[in-house]
């Protein structure tokens, strides 16, 4: 858990580790007027999200990282920082059938496709999509 702190302190503490983590923050922010496309979303009502120069919002670590690159002044009101696990843990290797391209350890999908039964191939691709979203 992260208590109230300045964006600068938090940024210097974790830096690029923010990208390799699950981070959720509640922040107050102000971008310099020169920024044309601010990246922090603020929910306006039930259906609208805007990207203002100044406001209060929830954001992820990656969004925070990019905002800091854009010289944004940030005050962190609270949040959570959970780093990724060390790479010693192996991702379960799942194979759809013996000849099927399987998910490799770094979870990138192999491109090779075995053309045998077009329907079955379609099903397998659907499974791959679901696997990625489920994992």
């Amino acid at each position, binding site marked *: 858990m992260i208590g109230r702190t300045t964006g600068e302190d938090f940024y210097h503490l974790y830096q690029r580790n923010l990208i390799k983590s699950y981070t959720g923050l509640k922040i107050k922010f102000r971008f310099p007027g020169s920024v044309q496309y601010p990246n922090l979303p603020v929910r306006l009502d039930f259906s609208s999200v805007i990207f203002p120069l100044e406001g209060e919002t929830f*954001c992820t670590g990656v969004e925070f990282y990019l905002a800091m690159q854009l010289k944004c002044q940030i005050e962190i009101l609270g949040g959570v920082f959970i780093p990724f696990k060390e790479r010693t843990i192996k991702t*379960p290797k799942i194979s759809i059938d013996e000849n099927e391209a399987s998910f490799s350890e770094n979870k990138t999908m192999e491109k090779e496709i075995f053309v045998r039964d077009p329907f*079955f191939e379609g099903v397998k691709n659907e499974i791959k999509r679901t696997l990625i979203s489920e994992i």
Partner: protein
Amino acid sequence: MKTKTKTKLKFTSVNYIPEHVLSAYGLQIKMLHPLIKLLDFRGFDLEEVSTFLNLRSLVFLVCGVNPSSFLTFTEIEDFLLAVQKEFYLFHIDGYVNQRNMELNKIFNIFRSLYPQYKDIFRSYEIKNVDCELEHFHNLIILVLLLELELYQKHYTEVKGRVDYCDRSEIKEKLDLMQIKKSELIKSLSGGIRVSISRNRLILQDRIYAGFDTEYTNIDDQKNRILCYTTASTSESILRIRSNKIDFSLREGDVKLPKTADLITTGVKLIRLLRGKKDFELGVLKELLDRESTFDRLTLFNQDIIYKQKTFDISKIHTSFHDIRTDPTQFSFYGLIDEVLQNQSDSNPSTQKFRDFTRKLNLKPVFRSECFLIAHFTTADVSLFSDFNEIKDKFSILNKSFLTLDRNISYKKWKVYLRDSSLLSPGGMSLKAIGNLYPTLPLSKVDLDQNQIKNMDLFFDSNKPLFMDYAIQDAKIVLWHSLQVLNSHYQLSKKYTIPVTLSSLASSFLSLKLIVSEDKESCYHPKTKNGLISMKDLAKLNTPIGIELSGDLHEYIDYFLGSYHGGRNESYIYGMIEGRFHDYDLPGAYPTAMSMLDYPD
């Protein structure tokens, strides 16, 4: 290789059991009740049976009753009361305390059997052992149930041999026994209760029917139905349910209790007394395995099903109904009736299955299921003349009508509605689905735009081609669903038509992950205490959820709040002349998520 470790009644901590009980322990096999000796133990693991019966004797001795004596009705009642009194002794003070629990003679049997739980009542980590205590309770209830079943069986036989006066007296006592039995069964955990009474043999009649409608547009809002077509086939399935017992006490429990083997034996013995014929089911399996005309499929829950080898496309029954004069003929129940009538001839496999079961004097439970499938059901289902009456029975998923959790009952049939557009990769068109099977006569009849726009004129001008076109659609839908059915088995070990291809993928994933990693499910991530799932937000945001979820309730708000959906932005406003580009990243979220790793 058999890896199961057997529970052995070994007293390592002698302090808990009174000395006279221990001295009697060596005699227990000889002290078996005469009624037990009469049982037919074919198909049983005798070592397991003797372990269970040893435990039975021990419970008798703890309650001061001789395990080998023949009890009268009153004595049986007294014995049950004695066990229950001893068992629930800790209730006497009105509250549960450590001393009372440690004095409890029946729980002492458990503590002596499993020395690792010697200090169970001193532990504050009760959630780790409550499963063991609960299942030990189940075990003792099974011992009592076995006793009641034995006497009930015996006295039912006696009843047939005695005078009329005695008979009514015995009947009264038997009724009392039945009440006691019901009370005991109620106190068992759900999974064990079900496995005692479950009928393991099911004969299923299944009908699969694709249907399609052709209509013409009257104006922007109204259509006029011209005809409907069906293509149907049937199969007969003999399902032999697994004798595996579900030991889970709450959702997601996968750990087996130490007493699992003893409970399994107890359940088997009670089933034997109830005439469930588990041994004969084993014989039936052997007989059916030898029969080359059937396929044997083993499902994810270890159920075994036998069915005909494959579906034959030439045996699909098709029908065409011109309903231009009376569109009300197209109704949901009318459609089912039509399909049932087309498949009214008994499947030859059904007769074969019946012959086999009759040979072994087995009585299967009969089930009838009907799967109705259409492509983009929204169009077809909304044209039912009884749509307003039945629409509440359907669910809507991805703009399609179908049945999700509950089926629709009609006569003896359970009816399921499926949409083949949800069963095809990327919501393919019917033509594309037909082209998936190039070797089969399933390509869609090609029509020109004029014919498609003016179906009624096309119908009048070339009826045979129109009929071919309409029937082919229903056939494609049916055949494709049957392929999905087979794939569902191959990938997920389930033999039913799934609702969507994604649900098939999801069950495939859950099967792979649960089976692979030490039999523990890592599919639904739990919090560290294993009680509240991150997926179950409704449960998390309750007083109980917040207290039991560890720190999860503190974290979750930050992550939920950070989710804003995709950014969609137009960089220039107003009228644009000339060429403009619309950039889209399909599957951006899943792709980014695939680069994430497990949280530490």
